């Protein structure tokens, strides 16, 4: 729906912009190529930097000779640990300063001769052209003293140690006696799953353009964390925060991979300082794999015990993940299992191993994306054991309160999602027997799984400016990487102030704007919406204050609670006047309101709220797959998702985001895998030719439906939608493959060798 169409609908009596499928406001800039991403900012004396990567997993550099590289025409400098200007060491993560989250490694690049992973940057070549820099970088060949490295996850995972948790993300849970209940259960499954490492593979590779002007720094960077990137850079380079500006109006995909400050960013800034010129450091696709962490691999055990009626008596979910020895945070793999099903006995444990590999980093629903593969596959297998419909099994175990924490559920429409999904998909029409449905050479199967992701709201500062001409500017340093962030906030502000959407402009993607939280944890939209609501309310009060004092104003003496914003002004019943009239009378060119929440207060309230209420997005996936009976080729032919994601602000952009999670989940299920050489720790397939993300032909029509009921305990009833839809996807595919072929695949990705006929006959 275009803005004009929306305005027409509004004029015809539609009450609000919130809820309408408005076209994204930055769509035009993106389809014409006008949108400029980080690498596309040019400066007259721009120099180009390329990284040199370590070729050993662990060791020390014994010699690094830049001479050969320096002979390449156009090379300006070769920076190594022997000559690079120093950076302050990276801070360790601290709950007292959450900005330390963006520091993913303890390695201080080019300030040490130590190597902690294969691919760690050990030198930077700066040249007049990218080609010269790239060629010269191949001529820097350090000598190493190799040290023993531990890089094989499969070999090391039996030695994993218990993971430390925190109040928002505990790493263990015990309720009742799950081991005893499992032993006594009349029906049970006990399965071991593995998932491989994955990489984000945003189509825009990470790129930085760094410009120093004296001690003032400007950075063009596609980041999911503008405010914390600025703070981190200021700290590392020893300059005041106010002298650092991070510009990030467009982010060419992130998915978690642009949430932290990785080597490329730091070394672009360092190189620019060293050579005294603006520097562009645009990572090659392979360099992204070598310097930006991906999703942890995992091994998981899920054991479920149930009575004959399908009521769960025991849930056991344990996991092992990995971090790098020089950084990374263990992922909450069992997190969704805390919340999904009621059971009197629950045992959850997360373990972790440290390897001499690059730090892992959050990737769309870290923990839950792979944890739900195991849990939801096991639930499906339990349904087979019970001879019960898997939808029915889930309905019988739907909790009234949070199963582990005991909190009340602010809103949870999972029952409705199952029912509506099953109905729309035609679930009841399937032949429940495995391998029974055929279409020529294709074995056809249907699968389903639950989706679940907790909701999080963080403090966001927002300012709103109302001009005498009726135009509104919303300012917030939030991130846009395709979610439609500016579009939905404009819709909200237009409704709050009662002005046409076309008169609202949203400024974002700049650290000079009021601080927003990062785009992560599915938190940005709800968080910023809270700020926009508060700032609009403050603005209306300021405008009303002007009118209330003015003789002759129909709003004279009116109380804020009784006044409504609509039709470009403030009204009390039918009496009122336009913003333009109020501002003109007061002799004001504009009125501005800004909100700036206090972080400690906000976090204290959040923790308190978290103790009392469980808030989450959830949903149900239904899919159909076809497996070639001779080759084992697997095609996903149909997908339907019904989601409870609170109030939907923009049905069009929300559907896109939910589809996006499902598409990434399809890759996770069927084709994606980062291969790490278990001897050298080297990534074997660091590119899109060998790491297979889903293409057009892999993605069927994906039907998205919303239950669209506002959450009573979040701003505007919003619940974040960035991650929920990837959870459960791989399980839904695995469950459909089980139905089609009779084969339960426990190891992702489900490649054709794992379902090839002749290995084990279908039951």
């Amino acid at each position: 729906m275009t803005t004009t169409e929306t305005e027409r609908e509004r004029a015809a009596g539609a009450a609000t912009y919130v809820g309408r499928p408005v076209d994204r406001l930055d769509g035009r800039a993106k389809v014409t190529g006008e949108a400029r991403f980080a690498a596309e900012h040019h400066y007259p004396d721009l120099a180009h930097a390329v990284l040199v990567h370590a070729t050993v997993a662990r060791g020390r550099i014994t010699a690094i000779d830049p001479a050969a590289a320096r002979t390449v025409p156009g090379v300006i400098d070769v920076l190594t640990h022997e000559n690079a200007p120093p950076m302050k060491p990276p801070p360790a993560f601290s709950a007292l300063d959450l900005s330390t989250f963006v520091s993913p490694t303890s390695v201080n690049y080019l300030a040490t001769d130590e190597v902690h992973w294969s691919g760690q940057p050990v030198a930077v070549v700066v040249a007049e052209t990218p080609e010269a820099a790239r060629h010269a970088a191949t001529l820097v060949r350090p000598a190493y003293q190799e040290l023993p490295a531990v890089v094989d996850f499969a070999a090391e995972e039996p030695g994993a140690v218990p993971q430390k948790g925190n109040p928002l993300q505990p790493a263990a849970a015990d309720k009742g006696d799950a081991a005893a209940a499992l032993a006594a259960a009349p029906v049970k499954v006990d399965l071991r799953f593995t998932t491989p490492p994955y990489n984000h593979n945003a189509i825009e590779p990470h790129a930085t353009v760094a410009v120093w002007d004296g001690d003032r720094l400007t950075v063009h960077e596609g980041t999911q964390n503008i405010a914390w990137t600025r703070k981190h850079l200021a700290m590392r380079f020893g300059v005041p925060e106010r002298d650092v500006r991070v510009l990030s109006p467009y982010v060419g995909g992130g998915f978690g991979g642009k949430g932290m400050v990785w080597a490329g960013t730091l070394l672009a800034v360092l190189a620019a300082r060293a050579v005294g010129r603006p520097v562009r450091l645009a990572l090659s696709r392979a360099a992204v794999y070598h310097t930006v962490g991906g999703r942890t691999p995992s091994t998981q055990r899920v054991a479920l015990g149930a009575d004959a009626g399908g009521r769960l008596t025991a849930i056991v979910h344990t996991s092992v993940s990995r971090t790098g020895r020089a950084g990374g945070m263990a992922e909450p793999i069992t997190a969704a299992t805390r919340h999904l099903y009621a059971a009197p006995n629950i045992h959850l444990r997360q373990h972790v191993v440290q390897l001499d590999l690059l730090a892992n980093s959050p990737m769309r629903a870290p923990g839950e994306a792979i944890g739900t593969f195991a849990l939801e596959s096991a639930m499906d297998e339990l349904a087979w054991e019970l001879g019960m419909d898997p939808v029915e099994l889930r309905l019988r175990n739907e909790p009234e309160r949070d199963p582990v924490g005991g909190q009340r559920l602010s809103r949870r429409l999972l029952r409705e999602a199952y029912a509506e999904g099953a109905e729309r998909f035609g679930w009841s029409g399937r032949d429940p027997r495995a391998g029974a449905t055929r279409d020529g050479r294709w074995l056809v199967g249907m699968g389903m799984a639950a989706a679940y992701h907790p909701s999080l709201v963080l403090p966001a500062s927002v300012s709103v400016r109302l001009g005498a001409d009726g135009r509104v500017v919303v300012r917030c340093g939030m991130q846009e990487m395709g979610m439609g962030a500016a579009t939905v906030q404009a819709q909200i502000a237009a409704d709050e102030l009662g002005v046409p959407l076309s008169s609202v402009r949203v400024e974002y993607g700049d650290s000079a704007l009021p601080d927003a939280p990062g785009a992560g944890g599915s938190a940005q939209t709800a968080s910023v919406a809270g700020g926009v609501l508060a700032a609009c309310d403050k603005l209306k009060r300021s405008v009303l204050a002007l009118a209330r004092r003015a003789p002759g104003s129909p709003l004279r003496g009116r109380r804020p609670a009784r006044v409504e914003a609509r039709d470009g002004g403030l009204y009390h019943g039918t009496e009122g006047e336009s913003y333009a009239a109020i501002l003109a009378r007061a002799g004001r060119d504009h009125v501005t309101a800004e909100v700036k929440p206090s972080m400690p207060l906000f976090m204290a309230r959040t923790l308190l709220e978290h103790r009392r209420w469980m808030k989450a997005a959830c949903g149900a996936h239904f899919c159909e797959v076809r497996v070639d009976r001779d080759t084992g080729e697997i095609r996903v032919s149909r997908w339907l998702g019904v989601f409870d994601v609170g109030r939907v602000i923009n049905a069009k952009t929300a559907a896109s985001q939910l589809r996006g999670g499902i598409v990434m989940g399809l890759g996770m299920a069927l084709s994606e895998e980062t291969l790490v050489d278990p001897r050298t720790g080297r990534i074997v397939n660091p590119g899109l030719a060998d790491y297979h993300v889903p293409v057009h032909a892999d993605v069927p029509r994906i039907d998205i439906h919303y239950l669209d009921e506002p959450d009573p305990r979040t701003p505007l009833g919003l619940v974040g939608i960035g991650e929920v839809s990837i959870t459960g996807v791989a399980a839904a595919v695995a469950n459909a493959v089980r139905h089609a072929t009779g084969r339960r695949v426990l190891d992702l990705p489900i490649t054709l060798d794992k379902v090839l006929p002749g290995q084990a006959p279908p039951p």
Partner: protein
Amino acid sequence: MRVNGADEKLDVEPWTSLLDLLRDRLGLTGVKKGCDQGACGACTVLADGVRINSCLALAVQYDDKDITTVEGVTPHPLQEAFVRHDGLQCGYCTPGQICSAIGMLAEHAASGADPAALTEAEIRERMSGNLCRCGAYNGIVDAIKDVAR
């Protein structure tokens, strides 16, 4: 070389890719670099109306050719259709998708095939060289179908 309708006299190194020439020398940053190895399609441009991966093309090989980038096709009904059907999210693969779709529709028409043969499955197959990690594939196919009609 003719770029977006304008004649350009360019002196380039033999190793310069058409992609780097367009992006860095001519400032046509609507052409995107996603993988630099022909695997993602973000760099798709039209050479004499035929879609190519400009990262795999040496600029010198395109002497005297007519190159069209997303800047040169603007305004195009596909662009409007992409916005209307939300065939994009982050926008980074979008110019490549659009150029590829224009080339694909031309290929299909030139083959003399019945326009009705351009089903969703056929569009998907023909567009599979253009990756979208945000997963906007459904919207892209809808946009192309809309314009092909």
